[in-house]
């Protein structure tokens, strides 16, 4: 099983390379995953998306669709793709410490 080491602590990862345990997640870990994924700095807009995704996941057990993300978080589609280039839903979920989203939309 692959691990990610942040601050001297090895964290277990799932088959997609996302955190295996959502409770391992901290904001520092989010920053570390983002850097490794090519996002050097998380802006307040990034945090809006990350926190919204975590909030929905905790309540419903899956990350929100892009449509819902844009409608309810107030971050529009264009901005979302700028914040998380190369696949917003998947990358935001990874940084948020969640498994890869299951939905198709």
């Amino acid at each position, binding site marked *: 099983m692959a691990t990610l080491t942040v601050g001297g602590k090895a964290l277990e990862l799932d088959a997609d390379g996302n955190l295996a345990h959502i409770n391992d997640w901290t904001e520092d870990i989010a920053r570390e995953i983002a850097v490794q994924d090519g996002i050097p700095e998380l802006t307040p807009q990034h945090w809006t998306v990350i926190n919204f995704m975590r909030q929905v996941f905790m309540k419903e057990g899956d990350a929100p669709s892009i*449509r819902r993300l844009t409608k309810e978080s107030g971050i529009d589609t264009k901005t979302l*793709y700028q914040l998380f280039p190369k696949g917003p839903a998947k990358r935001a979920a990874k940084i948020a410490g969640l498994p890869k989203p299951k939905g198709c939309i």
Partner: protein
Amino acid sequence: MADTAQPIEKVSIIISRGSLEGVYPGLIMANGARMEGIEASLFFTFFGLDAVIKKRMNDLKVATVGNPAMHIPTLVGAIPGMSSFATSMMKKEMEKLDIPPVAEFLTMIHDAGAPMYACRATVDMFHLKKDDFCPEIDGVISVGQFYEMAAGGQIIFT
């Protein structure tokens, strides 16, 4: 999936049919590609153009005749109102899955960075003008231009 498989980096999706069930798969695949960070473009041809014609895009219907997968007899499918009924049922189910109506979906996919084109031959055949199309259409292009733009990627015909 084998680790050695080359990941897909670019898709050009052709939408050639104008029924609701003919249009959505291509839209879902284009949106899904962008969500995965795959470059995507959409090419609308023949009756698929209905999906991007302002006056028609919100009135696409499910085909209830000549569609064996509907599992209703052809003559029943032909009863007036059947297609509208099946369409509204399907739209309701799609809304539950957070699949947007056509116009909203096109905006979303376009905002996600997927360019959209109308087929030159069809536009000429149906005497359509740039003004007939939704603003997401980036241009009317020939088959040759389509292949040029699709270079280096996969072409998906729906």
